[in-house]
C-alpha cells in the first residue's frame, strides 16, 4: 500500500464524493414526493393554521389584529358565553364515524367470506362489483339515496304503513338516512382491506382449531378473527376518518337538525363566512384525528397485530 492512496486527504475527497452522490440519489427519488407534500399538504395546513389566528373582516375574511378568538370559539366560548354545541357536534360526528365503521364491519365480513369461498377465478369480478359504485361520484350516489329514502319513496311508504314514521314524512332527512349513506359510501373501504386479509387466511389454523375442539363462534373468534385483525384495523381507519369529517352525506341526507363537523366547517366558508373560525375548526379536526390515530396505533400494537396493517 503506497503512502499516497492511504493519505487522509484523498480518502476524505472520495468519501465526500460518495456522500454527495448518495444525497443526489436521495433527492432525485424522494424529491418529487416531498415537493408534492410540501405544496399540497404542509403549505395549505400552515396557511389554515395562520388564518386561525386572525380576526374576522366584514365579509368573514381574515383581518388584523391577530387573536386567539377563533380557537376559543372552537372550545365553545362566544360573546354569549360557553355553549356545548361544538362538543356535541364533535361527539355526534365521532359517533357517526364509529357506527359507520361498525356497520361496515358487520356488512363486510359476510361479503368478504362469501367472495373468498368462491372459485379463485371468480373472486376479482365479485370484488369489482363491490368497488364499482365507488367509481361514480359520491354526490350522485347520495342523491340516489335521497330518492330512495325521500317522503314519496316506496321505502318511506312501507315505513309509514308499518308505523315506524308518521304519515307524509320520509325516511330522509335524519340520522337514520345519514347512517345509511355513510355505511353505503364507505363499505368498499372496509371490504377491500378485509378481503386482502381473508384471502391469505391460513385455513390450516382453522382446521387446527376444529381439531382442538373449537366450533361455531368459538372457532371464528379463535382461529379466523385474529387473522383478519390487520385488515380490520386498516378498514376502520379508511372508514372512520373520512366518515368523521364527511360533508356530502350529512348535508344531503342529514337535514339541518343534526350538525356534523364537516358541515359546520363548510358553513364557515360558504354560508355565513367566518374564515378564521373555519380554519381553527379544521386545525382542531386535524389534531383530533391525528391524536385518535396515535391512540389507535398504541392499542393495536398492544394487540400485537399492527404488522401488515397500514398504520
Amino acid at each position, binding site marked *: 500500500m503506497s503512502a499516497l492512496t492511504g493519505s487522509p486527504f484523498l480518502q476524505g475527497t472520495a468519501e465526500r464524493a460518495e456522500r454527495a452522490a448518495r444525497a443526489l440519489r436521495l433527492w432525485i427519488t424522494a424529491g418529487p414526493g416531498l415537493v408534492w407534500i410540501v405544496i399540497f399538504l404542509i403549505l395549505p395546513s400552515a396557511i389554515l393554521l395562520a388564518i386561525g389566528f386572525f380576526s374576522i373582516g366584514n365579509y368573514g375574511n381574515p383581518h388584523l389584529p391577530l387573536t386567539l378568538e377563533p380557537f376559543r370559539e372552537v372550545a365553545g366560548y362566544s360573546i354569549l358565553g360557553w355553549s356545548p354545541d361544538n362538543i356535541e357536534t364533535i361527539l355526534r360526528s365521532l359517533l357517526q364515524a364509529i357506527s359507520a365503521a361498525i356497520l361496515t364491519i358487520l356488512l363486510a365480513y359476510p361479503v368478504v367470506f362469501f367472495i373468498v369461498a368462491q372459485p379463485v377465478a371468480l373472486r376479482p369480478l365479485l370484488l369489482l362489483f363491490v368497488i364499482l359504485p365507488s367509481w361514480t361520484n359520491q354526490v350522485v350516489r347520495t342523491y340516489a339515496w335521497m330518492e330512495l329514502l325521500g317522503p314519496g319513496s316506496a321505502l318511506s311508504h312501507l315505513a309509514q304503513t308499518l308505523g315506524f314514521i308518521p304519515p307524509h314524512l320520509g325516511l330522509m332527512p335524519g340520522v337514520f338516512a345519514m347512517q345509511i349513506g355513510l355505511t353505503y359510501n364507505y363499505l368498499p373501504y372496509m371490504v377491500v382491506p378485509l378481503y386482502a386479509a381473508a384471502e391469505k387466511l391460513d385455513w390450516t389454523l382453522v382446521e387446527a382449531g376444529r*381439531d382442538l375442539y*373449537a*366450533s361455531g363462534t*368459538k372457532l371464528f373468534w379463535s382461529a379466523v378473527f*385474529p387473522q383478519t385483525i390487520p385488515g380490520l384495523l386498516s378498514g376502520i381507519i379508511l372508514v372512520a376518518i373520512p366518515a368523521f369529517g364527511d360533508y356530502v352525506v350529512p348535508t344531503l341526507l342529514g337535514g339541518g337538525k343534526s350538525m356534523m363537523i364537516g358541515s359546520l366547517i363548510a358553513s364557515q366558508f360558504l354560508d355565513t363566512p367566518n374564515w378564521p373560525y373555519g380554519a381553527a375548526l379544521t386545525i382542531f379536526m386535524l389534531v383530533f384525528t391525528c391524536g385518535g390515530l396515535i391512540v389507535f396505533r398504541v392499542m393495536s400494537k398492544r394487540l400485537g397485530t399492527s404488522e401488515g396493517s397500514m398504520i
Partner: protein
Amino acid sequence: MPGTTDRGGITLEGISRVFGGGIVAVDQIDLAIRPGEFFTLLGPSGCGKTTLLRMIAGFETPDSGRIVISGREMQTVPPHRRAVNTVFQSYALFPHLNVAENIGFGLRMRGIARAERKFRTDQIMALLQIDDFATRNPAQLSGGQRQRVALARALVNEPEVVLLDEPLSALDAKLRAELQVELMRMQKRLGMTFIFVTHDQQEALVMSDRIAVMERGRLLQVGPVLDVYEQPRSVFVAEFLGLSNIWPITPAPGNTADTPLGRLTIVTPIGNERTAMIRPEKIWIYNDTAAPLDRPNIFRGTVREAIYMGASTQYRVELHDGSIVLALDTNNQAAERSWQPGEAVALEIKPENIILIDG
C-alpha cells in the same frame, strides 16, 4: 360394544374419497389399526395417504365406507367431537397465542378449569423440554421447537389417537433423526395410537410398528416393518422401500428360473411368480479370483461405480452380458475388501434371499 378394550383402535371399511373431476384419492380401503400401535402410512406424494389421515381426523368425509374409532362409528362426526388430535405438517400454531396458550387451547375449548389446564400444560411442556419457551410466540421459535409445541398441543389432550401428517419433513436430517427417536419414546410411554404419514421410507422403517404402503389410493401391503421390507408382495413396494434388484423370470426345469442374468437357482420351483427381487445387501461380493465356484448363482462382472456411504459402500456391477446388479457391502472388513471401478468381481446370489413376486 363400546368397551375400553378397543380404545384407540381404528377400523376402516371400504373407505373411498373421490374429488371433483373424478380424481379417486382413496379407493376402497379396508384397514385395522390396533390400540397403542405406531402405524405409518407410507407412499409417494399424491397416493392418498394425507386424504386418508384427514378422513380419520374428520376434515374430509368419505364418499363411502365406515370409520370406527374406539368402537364408535365416526365418519360423519365433525373433528371437534373426535378424540383424535392432529400434528400438522406446517405445525399450524396460532400466531397470536404464546407457546403455553397454544398448548392449552384444546383444554380451554373443552372447558377445562384454569388450574388443571395449567397443570397439564406445564407437565407436557416439561416432558417435551419446551418449558423454557412457555411465554414465547411461535414466530420466535426454531423449526424443531415449533414441532415440539405442535406435538405437545396434541398430546396434552390425551387423545385416543394422534395423527401426524409428515411432521418432520421441514427439519434438517440430524434434528429429524433426534425427533424420530423422541416421537417413538413418547408414543410408547403414553400408549396412544399414533398414525404417521410420510413419504420417507427411512422414517417409516425407523419408527413404525406396522406400515401400510399406499399407491394411487390403494393399500398395496400392510404389515410389520420387517415383513414389508423383507417380503414385498409387489414391485412397487420393493422399489419404494429401500433399494432392490428386480428381474423378470420365466420357469425353468427343477428349482431354477431364467432371468436376463442367466439361469438362477431358487429354493422351490416357481409357480405364478414372474418377477424376482433381491436386496443389494443380500448379495455377496468377492474378488474375481476368490469366487466360490462350487456354489450356485455365482455371476462375474466388473465394478462400474462404487459409492462410499460411510458405514457401507454401494457397488454397481456390470455383468458380462451387460446387465447391472446393485450390491451393498458393509465397511467392517479390512481395506482389501473394497473395490474400485474397473475391478473384476464375482457376485453370489443365495437362493434363500431371492424374493419371488407375482406378476
